[in-house]
């Protein structure tokens, strides 16, 4: 449990970051702007607010993850504070866990704030269209939980990349992982279309190595219908297991790193 003070400290440190508030402000503005757009939508107010709200939360969550997550480890190394930390009775693995947990808590707070704004806007729109807000609440909540898990996975990836590369490269790797993670299913199909067995096998291998982020992206389905608890639980477990794997890898690399 040595990582808990580090997590608390990371939370305190990241929550003080002014860029976080600027991003949050933009996210809130975008969620609120869905009200304006919904008026132009010809009876699709609820759908527009649902889609735009969840996408805004996901996109701004990604921006925070990439900008903050990739700097977490390198900042300590650049400022040489890592020596101070590691001179205490803290294992290197605890350092990674602490950083991850700290940013996860920050992300949790940010996503909660965005979710509150999203649900207020959704409730307001639904009161205008006389739709049943309570019927949409479970679907919206499920989508938000999965968005949070996706952000945690990307945080773990950002930390993993920053254990062996510079912040800029880590940010690029994380963004690349996000893109491939969402495109991997299509790439698998493209591979099948080529009809080349060897290429197909390479793509299939990549498909199973990179995270399949579409498994955590059920918002497109949840806007119209609920998903079964089995699918939701499986998606959640998949995300959590992948996070655990990335953190373990990060710890392994960080253990062997020399400063």
């Amino acid at each position, binding site marked *: 449990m040595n990582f808990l003070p580090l997590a608390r400290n990371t939370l305190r440190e990241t929550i003080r970051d002014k860029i976080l508030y600027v991003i949050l402000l933009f996210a809130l503005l975008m969620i609120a702007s869905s009200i304006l757009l919904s008026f132009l939508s010809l009876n699709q107010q609820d759908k527009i607010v649902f889609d735009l709200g969840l996408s805004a939360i996901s996109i701004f969550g990604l921006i925070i993850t990439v900008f903050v997550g990739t700097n977490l480890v390198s900042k300590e190394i650049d400022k040489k504070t890592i020596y101070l930390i590691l001179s205490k009775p803290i294992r290197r693995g605890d350092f990674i866990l602490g950083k991850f947990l700290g940013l996860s808590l920050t992300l949790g707070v940010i996503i909660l704030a965005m979710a509150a704004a999203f649900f207020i806007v959704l409730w307001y729109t639904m009161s205008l269209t006389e739709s049943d807000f309570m019927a949409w609440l479970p679907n919206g909540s499920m989508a938000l939980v999965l968005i949070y898990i996706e952000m945690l996975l990307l945080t773990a990836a950002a930390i993993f990349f920053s254990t062996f590369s510079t912040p800029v490269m880590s940010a690029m790797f994380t963004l690349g992982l996000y893109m491939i993670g*969402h495109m991997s299913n299509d790439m698998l199909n493209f591979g099948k279309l080529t009809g080349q067995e060897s290429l197909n096998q390479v793509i299939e291998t990549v498909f199973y190595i990179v995270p399949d982020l579409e498994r955590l992206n059920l918002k497109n389905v949840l*806007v119209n219908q609920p998903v079964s608890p089995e699918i939701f639980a499986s998606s959640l477990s998949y995300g959590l297991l992948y996070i655990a794997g990335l953190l373990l890898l990060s710890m392994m690399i960080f253990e062997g790193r020399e400063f």
Partner: protein
Amino acid sequence: MSLARLILATLFCTVAFGSHLLHMRLQQALPLTDPANDKIRLMPPDFLRFVTLGHSNLMADMLWLQLIQYYGATAQEKSSRQYLYPYVDTITSLSPDFEDAYIFGSYVLSDTPEQVKQSLQLLEKGMQQMPDSWMIPFQAGFVSYLHQKDYAKAADYFVLASKRPEAPRLAQEMAAQLNRRTNDYSRCQLGLRLWQDAFENAPDGELRAKAEKRGIETRFHCDLILLEALIKKYQRDALATWEASVAAAKKAEADTLPPRPASFYPASLAELVKAGMVSSLPKDPLQRDFVYQPQTGKIQVKPLPWPAYELELLGYVVGKDPQKKPTN
């Protein structure tokens, strides 16, 4: 102000003015508000889904907003809606559960006779993507009924709609009525079965009474279709018999040819029984005979105790003008 700052300010003004001029020129050269640019926005759906990185619903929403603008602009300018189908096709590919996009798209497309086929194509896609939606086959039924006048196809769509969850009773009623309208005996019988089903499953007395009345009318209609078909067959047979006798007389070089009868229609409906075409003549529920006009071969029914909309409109009720719409 120092000279250096003055130079910088002048340079800034020059650059700002230059970029503004360039922007104006670009606006003229490539006006992005031109409806022709709809083609630019409409990239292949698979590509759009690929590049939206999991935000395909959001992209579909943005295209939906654009579609509304496009529809408004074409309606105002009364110009062609050539991109309407690509728009709704792309939207529904990005967001396959976007039920209103199928309905709105088909509604607007079927407005133009050349696009009715695309309208049904879109609804067929919707039926595949949303197998639980009753609204999509219901709309397809209306498109086939109103714009294609294909009653059999429309009836099939309404039957499909009636089997889907939460379908309104109207779907089954439309299917029953349209099956009647096809003037095909077996389809009419199908309509009769649908009315019987509606009667048995009616939730209240009023709907049961309505289903019973429509069922009686449908049975009438089926009998009328059957009798009309038999009269036509009788007429064809009589004509063939006469033509054969004329041919035989010509071959035998007879002095006189058999005279052409005034009518080939049966003199009475009893002739059909006599010819073995039907075992007995159907009667109406009030045990009255059908009204038959031997000169024209037309069959009618005596008025029912309630206004029988379809029968009256089709001119089957004695003394009712089919051109006049029944009041009830």
